[in-house]
C-alpha cells in the first residue's frame, strides 16, 4: 500500500528522496512506517504523528492512501527530546575545582617572578603637586617604579569612555586612584617601596553626592561639568494617563553602594617575551578581547601582540568586566622583562573596584479602579563616581527596567548619572535594575493595597504578552513569560499557604512578626540596539574522536562552559565526554563577546548550533565521497553519517575527520551568531530584544525588639526560555536570592567625605550560610524560538526582585515601609515607632 508522508522540523532529514509517499506492506503500523523512513528509537520516543489529521499511537494500523504528518514537537517534551539539554548535568570543570587543581590567574607563579603593588591616592580629591619616587627606586629588591610618565599610550581606560587614569599625573579624584606602580622581589618589599613614594597633594573640595554635584557652585570634576550622562524616554502623554487614573501612588527611594564581593580578589600575572615581542596577561576577567584592546591603547601596541587569558575567574558579577590589574601588569612586565604578579588585597578591592551605583528614584504610577495601570513617571539620579567606565548604559538600563514587565499606555522616564568623588559606579549583576525595581515593586504593592487587589492579581492584569507594545514603545518580539512566572509563584506552597505559615510562625515566636511578600522583574538579555552583540566559536572534529569547542567566553563561575558542551553534544548527537572546551584566551579562542548582560548562553549557544550545522553539512559531503553515495541519500545522526537506504553504509565523524586530515582539509568550522535586535532604536543601546522574566517570593521574620529582619524562605520562578542546565539555573537563582538578600539587609559600602568606611569583610557584611533562606526554584519555560534550544538567559534577574520582595514581606509582617536600602535594624525600629504613633 501507498502512504503519503510529510515530515517537519529536524525530521525533514528523513524525507524520502524526490517523493512524498512510501510503500508499506499491507496492514503495516505507524511504527513500521516510521522505521522504514529511517527514524531511530530516540526519534520515535518523541515523534508526534497525525494520520489524516488525527493524532495516533504508533501501533495504529495504516490503510492504503492514508496521509501521515510526522512532527518533532518543538520545545515540548523536553525530558524525552534532549539527552543533555535541560538536565542537571555535572559541570565539566567541577572535578578540577573540587580537588584544588584549577589554576586561577592568581594561583600562577613563574621562576623569578616579581610582586607588584600600586601606590594609591590618600585623598578623595586633590591635585598632585609633587611626586617623588627616588627613595622607592633605591630600596634594595625594587626592580621598577613606574609613574604616568612611563605610559607609552593613552593614560586611561574605560569600557565606554577611557577617562579612568591608568596612573594619575596631576589630580586624584577618588580614594582608589592609582599614582605609581612598584615591582619588587617580594610582596613585602613592594609594599615598603610604596610607602617610600612621596606625594605632595593640594586637597580639593570633595563632592560627596549627586545633589551636591548638581549645585551651581559645585566644583566641576570634568571639563563637561558634573553630569556624565542624561537619558529621557516617553510614550504617549503621561499627564493625560495620570488624569485618567482613579488612584495614584507616589514614592521616593534610594539605594547604597554595593560591592561584588567575589571571593577571588582581582589579580594575575604578566609576562613579556622579548624575543617574540609578545605580552601575556593572565587575569580575572569577563572579556579578554576587550582587555586586550584596552591594554593596547594604553601601551600604544599592536593588540595582536597581546595575549590575554581570562578564564577561569573566581567570581565576577560584572566587577571584572572593566580593567582591574591588566594594564598595570602589562606596564610592569614590559619594563622589567620579568614575570610580574599583582593581586589586590580585599581592602584594595573594596576601595578601588567599581560598585553598584547608588540611585535616587522617584515614581508616580496611576491605575484605574479595576487595577489597570494608566501611566508611569520615573526619575532616576545615579552617583557614578569620578570616572565613566560603563555608567551611561547602566543608567539607560535602569530606565528600561524601571516600569517592570507591565503594560502602561503612557510613560515618561528621565535620568541622569552624576560625577562625584565617591567610589566608582560600574557594572554589577543587574546593571541598574536592582536600584529601580526596589522602588517600582513597592509602589505596585502600595497600589494593590489601595485598590484591595491581590498583589499577584494586579500584576497579572497588567502583564506584558508576546506581541504587545511595551511601556517604552517597542514590540515584545521574543518569548514573554510574565504571567507564567506570576502563576508559578502564586501556586508555590509558600504563597498559597502563606496565611497559615505566618500564623504558625507568629505563634511559635512571640516577639516576632512574620510576613510574605513578592515582586517581579523583566531583565534585558544582551547588549541592546546598535552595540556589537555577537559570538564566534571554533569547532574541530579530531580523528581520535575528540571534539574541541573554542570560545572566547570566560568561565566566571556561572557554568557557561558546561552549558556550551551540553548544547554541542546535543547538536552533534554525541557523548558529552568527547567534548573539550577551550575558553577565554585571545590567542587560542575566537571572540565571543563579553560574559555580561545574561547573554552568554543565548549568543554563544546560537553560534554553537551554527557551527554544528556547518560541520554536519560538511560531514555529509565528505561522507558522500567516502561511502560513494549520493549526498541527498545521506543523513547525519548520532555522530555519524549514514545512507538512508543501505544500513551498511555508515561512517563516523571521527573517521570522516581522519580522511579530511589526510586530505589536508581538517573537519573544522566557525560558528557565528549576531543577536537579533528590537524593532525600535531609542539610541544609546536601548531597547533590548530578549528578556528574562522572574517572580520572587520571600518569607521574613521581623524581631520587634531588635528590628532584625530574617529571611526564612524564598521562592524564585524565573522564565529564561529554556533551562539548559537545571543545576545551573537553580544555582543562579539561589546565589541571586542570597545576593539580593545581602543588598536588602546587610551590605552597605559606607562612604564619608569620599572615604570608604567598610573596607573589609568584618564591616562590609555579606550573607553567610546561616543567614541564607531555604530557597525553592520553580523553573518556568516559555521557549524562545530564536534561542538555542529555546533558551534566553538567566544570570542577572534572580538577584533583582528579591530585594523589594523582602521589603514587601516586612510590610506584610509589620505594616512598615522603608524606602532607603539597606533595611537595617535601626531603620526598622524607627519605622515601627513611627507606625505606632
Amino acid at each position, binding site marked *: 500500500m501507498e502512504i503519503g508522508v510529510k515530515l517537519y522540523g529536524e525530521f525533514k532529514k528523513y524525507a524520502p528522496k524526490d517523493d512524498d509517499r512510501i510503500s508499506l506492506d499491507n496492514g503495516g503500523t505507524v511504527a513500521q512506517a516510521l522505521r522504514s523512513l529511517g527514524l531511530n528509537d530516540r526519534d520515535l520516543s518523541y515523534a508526534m504523528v497525525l494520520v489524516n489529521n488525527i493524532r495516533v499511537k504508533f501501533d495504529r494500523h495504516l490503510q492504503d492512501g492514508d496521509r501521515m504528518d510526522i512532527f518533532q514537537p518543538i520545545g515540548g517534551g523536553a525530558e524525552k527530546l534532549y539527552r543533555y539539554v535541560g538536565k542537571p548535568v555535572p559541570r565539566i570543570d567541577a572535578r578540577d575545582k573540587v*580537588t584544588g587543581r*584549577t589554576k586561577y590567574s592568581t594561583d600562577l*607563579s613563574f621562576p623569578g617572578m616579581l610582586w607588584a603593588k600600586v601606590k594609591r591616592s590618600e585623598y578623595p580629591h586633590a591635585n598632585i603637586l609633587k611626586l617623588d619616587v627616588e627613595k622607592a627606586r633605591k630600596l634594595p629588591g625594587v626592580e621598577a617604579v613606574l609613574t604616568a610618565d612611563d605610559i607609552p599610550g593613552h593614560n586611561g581606560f574605560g569600557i565606554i569612555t577611557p577617562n579612568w587614569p591608568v596612573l594619575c599625573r596631576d589630580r586624584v579624584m577618588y580614594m582608589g586612584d592609582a599614582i605609581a606602580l612598584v615591582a619588587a622581589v617580594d610582596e613585602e618589599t613592594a609594599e615598603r617601596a610604596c610607602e617610600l613614594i612621596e606625594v605632595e597633594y593640594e586637597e580639593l573640595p570633595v563632592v560627596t553626592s549627586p545633589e551636591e554635584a548638581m549645585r551651581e557652585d559645585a566644583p566641576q570634576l570634568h571639563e563637561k561639568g558634573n553630569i556624565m550622562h542624561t537619558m529621557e524616554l516617553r510614550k504617549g502623554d503621561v499627564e493625560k494617563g495620570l488624569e485618567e487614573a482613579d488612584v495614584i501612588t507616589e514614592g521616593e527611594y534610594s539605594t547604597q553602594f554595593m560591592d561584588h564581593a567575589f571571593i577571588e580578589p582581582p589579580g594575575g600575572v604578566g609576562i613579556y617575551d622579548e624575543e617574540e615581542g609578545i605580552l601575556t596577561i593572565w587575569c580575572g576577567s569577563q572579556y579578554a578581547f576587550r582587555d586586550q584592546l584596552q591594554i593596547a591603547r594604553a601601551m600604544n601596541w599592536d593588540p595582536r601582540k597581546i595575549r590575554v587569558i581570562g578564564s577561569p575567574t573566581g*567570581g565576577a558579577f560584572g566587577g571584572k568586566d572593566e580593567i582591574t590589574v591588566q594594564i598595570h601588569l602589562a606596564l610592569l612586565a614590559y619594563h622589567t622583562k620579568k614575570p610580574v604578579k599583582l593581586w589586590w588585597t580585599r581592602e584594595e578591592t573594596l576601595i578601588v573596584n567599581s560598585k553598584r551605583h547608588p540611585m535616587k528614584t522617584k515614581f508616580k504610577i496611576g491605575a484605574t479602579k479595576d487595577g489597570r495601570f494608566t501611566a508611569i513617571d520615573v526619575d532616576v539620579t545615579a552617583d557614578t563616581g569620578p570616572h565613566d567606565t560603563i555608567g551611561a548604559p547602566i543608567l539607560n538600563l535602569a530606565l528600561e527596567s524601571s516600569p517592570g514587565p507591565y503594560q502602561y499606555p503612557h510613560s515618561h522616564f528621565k535620568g541622569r548619572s552624576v560625577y562625584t568623588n565617591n567610589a566608582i559606579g560600574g557594572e554589577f549583576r543587574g546593571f541598574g535594575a536592582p536600584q529601580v525595581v526596589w522602588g517600582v515593586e513597592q509602589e505596585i504593592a502600595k497600589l494593590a493595597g489601595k485598590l484591595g487587589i491581590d498583589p499577584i492579581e494586579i500584576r497579572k492584569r497588567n502583564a506584558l504578552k508576546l506581541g504587545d507594545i511595551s511601556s517604552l514603545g517597542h514590540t515584545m518580539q521574543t518569548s514573554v513569560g510574565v504571567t507564567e512566572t506570576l502563576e508559578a509563584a502564586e501556586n508555590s506552597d509558600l504563597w498559597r499557604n502563606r496565611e497559615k505559615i505566618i500564623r504558625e510562625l507568629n505563634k511559635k515566636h512571640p516577639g516576632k512578626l512574620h510576613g510574605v511578600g513578592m515582586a517581579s522583574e523583566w531583565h534585558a538579555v544582551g547588549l541592546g540596539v546598535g552595540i556589537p552583540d555577537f559570538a564566534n566559536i571554533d569547532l574541530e572534529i579530531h580523528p581520535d574522536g575528540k571534539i574541541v569547542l573554542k570560545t572566547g567566553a570566560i568561565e566566571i563561575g556561572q557554568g557557561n562552559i558546561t552549558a556550551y558542551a551540553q548544547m554541542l553534544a546535543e547538536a552533534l548527537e554525541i557523548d558529552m565526554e568527547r567534548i573539550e572546551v577551550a575558553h577565554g584566551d585571545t590567542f587560542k579562542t575566537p571572540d565571543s563577546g563579553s560574559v555580561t548582560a545574561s547573554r552568554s548562553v543565548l549568543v554563544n549557544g546560537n553560534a554553537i548550533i551554527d557551527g554544528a550545522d556547518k560541520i554536519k553539512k560538511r560531514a555529509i559531503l565528505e561522507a558522500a565521497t567516502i561511502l560513494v553515495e549520493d549526498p541527498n541519500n545521506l543523513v547525519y545522526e548520532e555522530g555519524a553519517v549514514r545512507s538512508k537506504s543501505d544500513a551498511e553504509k555508515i561512517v563516523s565523524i571521527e573517521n570522516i575527520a581522519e580522511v579530511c586530515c589526510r586530505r589536508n582539509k581538517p573537519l573544522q568550522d566557525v560558528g557565528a551568531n549576531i543577536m537579533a535586535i528590537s524593532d525600535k532604536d531609542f539610541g544609546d543601546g536601548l531597547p533590548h530584544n530578549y528578556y528574562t522574566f522572574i517572580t520572587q517570593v520571600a518569607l521574613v521574620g521581623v524581631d520587634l525588639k531588635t528590628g532584625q529582619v530574617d529571611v526564612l524562605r524564598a521562592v524564585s520562578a524565573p522564565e529564561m526560555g529554556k533551562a539548559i542546565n537545571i543545576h545551573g539555573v537553580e544555582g543562579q537563582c539561589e546565589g541571586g536570592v542570597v545576593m539580593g538578600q545581602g543588598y536588602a539587609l546587610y551590605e552597605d559600602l559606607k562612604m564619608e567625605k569620599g572615604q570608604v568606611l567598610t573596607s573589609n569583610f568584618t564591616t562590609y557584611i555579606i550573607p*553567610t550560610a*546561616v543567614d541564607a533562606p531555604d530557597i525553592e526554584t520553580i523553573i518556568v519555560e516559555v521557549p524562545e524560538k530564536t534561542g538555542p534550544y529555546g533558551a534566553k538567559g538567566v544570570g542577572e534577574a534572580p538577584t533583582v526582585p528579591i530585594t523589594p520582595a523582602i521589603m514587601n514581606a516586612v510590610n506584610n509582617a509589620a505594616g512598615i515601609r522603608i524606602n532607603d536600602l539597606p533595611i537595617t535594624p535601626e531603620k526598622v525600629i524607627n519605622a515601627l515607632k513611627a507606625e505606632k504613633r
Partner: protein
Amino acid sequence: MKTVNIEFTLNGAKTKVTVPANMTLVHLLRKELGLTGTKIGCDKGECGACAVLINGKSMNSCLVLAAQVDGKEVTTIEGLENEGKLHPIQEAFIEEGAIQCGYCTPGMVISAKFLLDRNPDPTDDEIKTGISGNLCRCTGYTKIVNAVRAAAQKLKNAGGGGETR
C-alpha cells in the same frame, strides 16, 4: 630576616622547610610549596577560603604562622583525594552542583570534613553553622548544604562514622 626550621606532616608526607618567622601558613603552602588549592580571599581570617585541617581541626591558614605547624599534621584540599579517588565530600559537591566559580570550594570542603569528622549526622542547621565561616558569593549556599548532607549519607553508607578517612 629571621627564619625558622619546621618539620610537619603535609597531606601525609613528612615535610621539612625553612621559613621566615613571620610567614603565614597560607603563604608557605602557596608560595613556597606550590599548593595553590588553598585560596586567599581576604588574608585576614574573614572568608574561610584558606581553610586547612591542622591536626584534624579546620583553621584559616592566613591566621596561622607557618612556624606554628611544627610537629603537626596539615591536610589541604590536595590531600583529600586518595589515589585518584575523590573523597565522598568532593563527590557530593560535584553531584549536587555545589560548585560555581569554585574559589570558595576548597575551604568549604575542608570545613565540611571537619564538621562530618565530629558529627557524622548533622542537621541542616548544624551544617549551616559548620560552614558559616566560609563565604561563598555564587551559590547562595543551598547546594553546598545539600552536598554536605549527601556526603554525610555517603559516608554512613560506606560504614564510616567518626574520622572520615
